[in-house]
C-alpha cells in the first residue's frame, strides 16, 4: 500500500505527498502532460528536445545541476510519446534546493541561444547513437508510420527526421514552454522523508506564486480503425531477417491494457512463454521471439518481434505464428500458466514499489490517468483476470486486419 495525500494549489498545480520515513532521501517528481503526440507533424522531436533545454538554466538560476549537486542531489528526465517527466533525488534535509530549482524552471527558462545550439547537437548525437548507428536501430522509425496513419504515434519521440531537430528555433521553444509548462498542466509529487509540518508551506512558497495558465486542449487526431493488413519490407545490412507484427490495441486507461500486458507475458516474455516454447524450441523457426505492449495513453500497439533462424523464410514463420495465435484464441492460457503469470506480476510489483523513485513516478503517472490511488488498485486488476478475459482479448486482437507487419530483410551484400 502506497499512502499519499493530494491537493491542488490555487494556480492549478496538482500536488501529491507520499511520506516514507525509512529513507534519508526525498524525490521531487514533476510530470508535465505533454509528449511527442502533442507535436506538430512538421516539427517532431520537439517535446524531447525541450526536455534537454529544461536543464539549460532557468530565469533566476544559471545552471540547474550545479545547485542540485551542491546539495548532494542529482536529477534526470525522460520524454515519451505521452508525457515528459523530471525528477530530482536529494538528501531529505536539502529538499528546498530541489523545490527552488524545479519551481524556477516552471516559472520561466533562461532561453539562451547557446543552450539551444548545443542541445540540438546533443540530441542529434542521441538520434545517431540510438537509432542510426546499430543493427535494427531504425526499426521504430519505420514501424510507427506503418502502424499509425493519422495519430501522432506515427513518429518516435526522438522525431521523424534529424532535420526537424536541426530546424528548431528559439521562437518554437518559447511557444512550447508557454503552452505546456504551466502549473495547470503539471503534477508535482514529493515523496520520501518529508517533514509533514513544513512541506505544504514550502511548496506554496516556491510554486504558489507561479501563474497558473490553462491546461491546453488536446486535439489529437484519432487513428481510424484499421481495416486491412499492412506490410512493409525494408532491406538493411543486418545479420538476420527480423519481423515485427504490430497489432492495434486499446488505450492505457482501459482494462484491456492489463489484458494486453498479461497476454504479452504469456506468449512472449521469457523462455517459458508460449511462442518461445513452440516457435523457438520445438519448431526452431526463430532464434528469438518476444511479445510486449507499448502501453501508450491513446490506443497502443501489441508487438510480436523476433529474428528468423538461418534458412527459414518469412512465410514459414508467418504460417506457424498465425497457427499458434489461433490456438491462443481458441484455448487461451492454461490455468497453471495464468497463476504463474499472476505470481510473477505480484513479485515484480513488490520489487518496483521498493524504490522511492519508482513510487514517485508511478504516483504521478496514475494521477495523470485520473487517480494516483490506482497504484494500489492495479495489483487487484491483474489478479482478477480470468481465462475467458484473455480469450476474448486474443480474439479481438489477433486478426490479420488488425495487424501491420514490418520485415527487416538482410541484404545480400
Amino acid at each position: 500500500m502506497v499512502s499519499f495525500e493530494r491537493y491542488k494549489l490555487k494556480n492549478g498545480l496538482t500536488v501529491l505527498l507520499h511520506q516514507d520515513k525509512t529513507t534519508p532521501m526525498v524525490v521531487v517528481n514533476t510530470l508535465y502532460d505533454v509528449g511527442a503526440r502533442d507535436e506538430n507533424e512538421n516539427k517532431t522531436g520537439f517535446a524531447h528536445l525541450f526536455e534537454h533545454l529544461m536543464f539549460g538554466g532557468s530565469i533566476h538560476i544559471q545552471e540547474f545541476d550545479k545547485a542540485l549537486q551542491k546539495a548532494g542531489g542529482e536529477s534526470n528526465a525522460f520524454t515519451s510519446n505521452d508525457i515528459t517527466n523530471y525528477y530530482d533525488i536529494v538528501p531529505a534535509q536539502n529538499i528546498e534546493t530541489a523545490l527552488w530549482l524545479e519551481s524556477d524552471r516552471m516559472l520561466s527558462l533562461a532561453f539562451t541561444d547557446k543552450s539551444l545550439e548545443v542541445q540540438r547537437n546533443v540530441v542529434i548525437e542521441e538520434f545517431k547513437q540510438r537509432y542510426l548507428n546499430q543493427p535494427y536501430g531504425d526499426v521504430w522509425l519505420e514501424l510507427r508510420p506503418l502502424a499509425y496513419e493519422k495519430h501522432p504515434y506515427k513518429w518516435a519521440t526522438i522525431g521523424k527526421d534529424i532535420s526537424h531537430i536541426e530546424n528548431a528555433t528559439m521562437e518554437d521553444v518559447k511557444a512550447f514552454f508557454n503552452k505546456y509548462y504551466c502549473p495547470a498542466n503539471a503534477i508535482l509529487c514529493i515523496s520520501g522523508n518529508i517533514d509533514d509540518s513544513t512541506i505544504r508551506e514550502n511548496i506554496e512558497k516556491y510554486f504558489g506564486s507561479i501563474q497558473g495558465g490553462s491546461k491546453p486542449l488536446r486535439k489529437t487526431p484519432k487513428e481510424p480503425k484499421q481495416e486491412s493488413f499492412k506490410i512493409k519490407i525494408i532491406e538493411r545490412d543486418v545479420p538476420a531477417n527480423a519481423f515485427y507484427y504490430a497489432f492495434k490495441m486499446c488505450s492505457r486507461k482501459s482494462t484491456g491494457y492489463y489484458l494486453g500486458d498479461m497476454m504479452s507475458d504469456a506468449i512472449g516474455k521469457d523462455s517459458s512463454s508460449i511462442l518461445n516454447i513452440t516457435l523457438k524450441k520445438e519448431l526452431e523457426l526463430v532464434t528469438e521471439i518476444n511479445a510486449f505492449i507499448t502501453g501508450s495513453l491513446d490506443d497502443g500497439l501489441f508487438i510480436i518481434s523476433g529474428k528468423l533462424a538461418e534458412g527459414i523464410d518469412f512465410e514459414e514463420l508467418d504460417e506457424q505464428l498465425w497457427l499458434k495465435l489461433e490456438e491462443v484464441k481458441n484455448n487461451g492460457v492454461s490455468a497453471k500458466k495464468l497463476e504463474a503469470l499472476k505470481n510473477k506480476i505480484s513479485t515484480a510489483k513488490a520489487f518496483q514499489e521498493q524504490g522511492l523513485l519508482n513510487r514517485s513516478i508511478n504516483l504521478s503517472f496514475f494521477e495523470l490517468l485520473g487517480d494516483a490511488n490506482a497504484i494500489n488498485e492495479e495489483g487487484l486488476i491483474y489478479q482478477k483476470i480470468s481465462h475467458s478475459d484473455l480469450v476474448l482479448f486474443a480474439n479481438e486482437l489477433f486478426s490479420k486486419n488488425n495487424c501491420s507487419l514490418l520485415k527487416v530483410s538482410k541484404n545480400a551484400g
Partner: protein
Amino acid sequence: MLDRNKAPLPQKIQNIDFVRPQEIWINSSVKLLWMQNVPNDTSRIDLYFDAGLRKGRNIIASLCSSLLFSGTKEKNTTEIHNQIDQLGAFFDIGLSHEGVLVSVFALKENIYEAFCVIYNAIQGDVFPDKEIIEKITGKKEKHKINSGKVGFLAQRKFQEKIFYNTPYSELTNLEDYDNVTKKELVEFHKSAFKNGLYKVAVVGNLKEKEVESIVKKCKNSCIDKPLEYYKNFCNSPGIFHIEKKSAVQSAIRIGKTLFNKTHEDFFDFSILNTVLGDYFGSRLMKNIREDKGFTYGIGSALAETGGSGYFIIGSEVGIQHRQPTLNEVQKELETLCSIQMEQNELNLVKNYLLGQMLKSADGPYAMMDLFLSVDAYSLDMDFYNQYIERIHQIDTNQIKSISNKHLQWETMSVVSAG
C-alpha cells in the same frame, strides 16, 4: 518576499549508519551473508560461483553460465522455467572475468523454494545437446549483431590493450562457437559450479530455518580454499583505431591499468574520477557534451577486478568529432595535472559525493550491495566511514598530485572504432 536568486543553503549530510549483514560460515572459506531486516515482503538470494571468464576458455565459461537451466536428469529446461514462474520468481545471471553471479528474486514466502529449484537445476545440469546447439546459435547471432556496433568493437580492442599479454585479453571470435565440446562444458561445470560456490548473500525476512537449510544445501558445492586473483596487469599504451565505413558515430574508450579498493590511492582517485567524468556536471560532460555538443554522453569510471583495476573513459561521438574529442579529453587530463582546481568546484563534488553515499546506503538491498562491494576485497564497512572522512579532508592540491600520478596521457590506451 521570496528571493529566487538566492539558493537555499545546503545542509550538511548527517552521519550514515552502515549496517553489516549477519555472517554465517558455510565452511572455512565460504560464508553466507544475511540482511534480515527488510520492511516489505521482497527477498533476494545471490550465489557467487568461481566460474568467470578467467577460469577457462571464454567461450566455455560464457556458454556454461547461459546454460545453467538447460535441464537435469529429472527435468527439462521448460519444466525448470515453469517451476520458477509458478513461484513468481525471477532470476538474473551475470558473468565477469572473476565469476558468475546468479541472483534469485521472489517474495519471501517463495524465495526458499525458488532457491531450491534454481540451486538444484544448476548443480544437476546435464547440458542436453539440443540446448547447447540452440544456445550456440543464439549467441552466434548476438555476436554478429554486436559486431555491427561501434561500442562493441571499441570495447574489444580496449580489452585487448588494457589486459595486454594476460589471459584476460582473450576475445571470443565467431569461429570459437563452432569449436565447443560437451565434454569441455561438463568439465568446466564440475569445477566451476559443482565445486565453485564462493559466497552467498541473502536479503529478506526469511525464517531462520530456511537460512539454515540454505547453508546446509550449499555445503556440497563450496570451494575449499580462498580464491586468488590475477594481479599483474599492465596496459599497452598507444592510439588504436578500428575503421567501420558505414558508421555515423565513433566509439571511444580510453584508459589504463590502475587498482581496486585495497590500494592506498583508491579514495583520492575516486574523488578525482568524479571531478573528471562521473557526474552530470563533470569536466568531460561540461566540455564535450554541454559546451561542444559532440556527444549524447561521456563518462569515466574506475573498474575493479579481483586483484587489480583499471580506469576507463567511454563515449560515442559523431564521426567528425572523433579527433576533436580525443584532443579535448587529453586537454582535460592535462589541465587536471597542471592547474589546481577551484575550491568551489571541489566543494561541489564533495557535497555531491556525500549525497550519493547517503543514497547508496538507502535500504537493506543497497546496504547489502555496499557490503558485498567491500567484502570482495576483504574489507569491512568501516571502509565507507574512511571514505567519507577522506572526502571531507582532501584538498585541491591533493587532487592535482593524484592527477599527476595517474592521469598522464602517454600512459593511456586510446581506442576508437567507427
